[in-house]
């Protein structure tokens, strides 16, 4: 693990793969929802549904991005990603509220026989948005609190104190 981190190759490789996934998936999503009609409830509802089909690849891209950031260990990059993830979590909760209101409106517009499918589909999308918001918030807070530069775990971190004490003893005698 330490060798990989030192080389930096893995971190940059993961970052590039993550960016390719983001560009690809955002392009596919844009193709599905364009042109934008934010004032129409049905468009908003179906757009969130279309976005939900991209959640898994985007999440895997995000995991690659976060892993690369952890390997790089650069303070600014970690903090920037942390802020972006916290903002993303808040935005997703906002989308969830709008989606719930639109879903209620859509229930009045569909035929009765389609209602169970619509309810189940809406619940699935809502559950996914909640999970992704939780993931984003957790990752964001962890990134903002992360120690910088790949600091070792507690046991290894205590080693310099022990070394310092041994030298002190040697000087005293």
């Amino acid at each position, binding site marked *: 693990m330490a060798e990989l981190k030192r080389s930096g190759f893995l971190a940059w490789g993961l970052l590039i793969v993550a960016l390719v996934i983001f560009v690809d998936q955002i392009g596919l999503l844009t193709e599905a929802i364009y042109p934008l009609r934010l004032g129409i409830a049905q468009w908003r509802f179906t757009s969130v549904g279309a976005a939900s089909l991209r959640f898994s690849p985007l*999440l895997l891209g995000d995991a690659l991005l976060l892993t690369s950031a952890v*390997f790089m260990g650069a303070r600014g990059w970690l903090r920037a990603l942390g802020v972006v993830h916290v903002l993303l979590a808040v935005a997703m909760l906002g989308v969830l509220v709008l989606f719930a209101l639109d879903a209620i409106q859509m229930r009045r517009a569909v035929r009765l026989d389609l209602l169970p499918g619509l309810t*189940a589909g809406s619940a699935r999308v809502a*559950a*996914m948005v909640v999970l992704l918001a939780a993931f984003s918030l957790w*990752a964001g807070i962890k990134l903002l609190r992360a120690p910088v530069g790949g*600091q070792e775990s507690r046991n290894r971190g205590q080693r310099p104190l022990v070394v310092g004490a041994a030298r002190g003893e040697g000087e005293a005698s």
Partner: protein
Amino acid sequence: MTDQASWAFRIWLFAGAIVLFDIATQVLIPLSFPIENAAAARSAMLQALLSNVTFVVLGAMGIAVGLRALYGGAGARWSGLLFLVLAGALIGAIVALVTNADTGIYVQSTAPDAGTAQRALARAATSAIAGTVALVGLGVGLLVGGKEELPA
């Protein structure tokens, strides 16, 4: 293991679980269809599973990487079992594909003509078989060889 490495493995554990949850819900949603559309529901379930074989394997790998690294041999055992359960689901899909009624439904709903239908069926079957082989191989590998200690 460094704190950062431990956190990176947790990211993959969490992300893998969400990906598998996403696919599981996509596969199970058609169960909410009215009972007279049971054939259409089976077809939709098959399509949801067979168009997501890549993500099934990636999600399971994320979970396995996280569990193995964080919980050692016990994590390897649990992720090996998870792989085998997922392989079982794919084997079920393959059986459904080769069963006459469900194959007809799958082909009808995915293709407008016979040639396209054959290709769609061949693609779905190939994905399912490749996914099953990968999942069984990884599952058995984790169950048998996952107990060895990781290097520090």
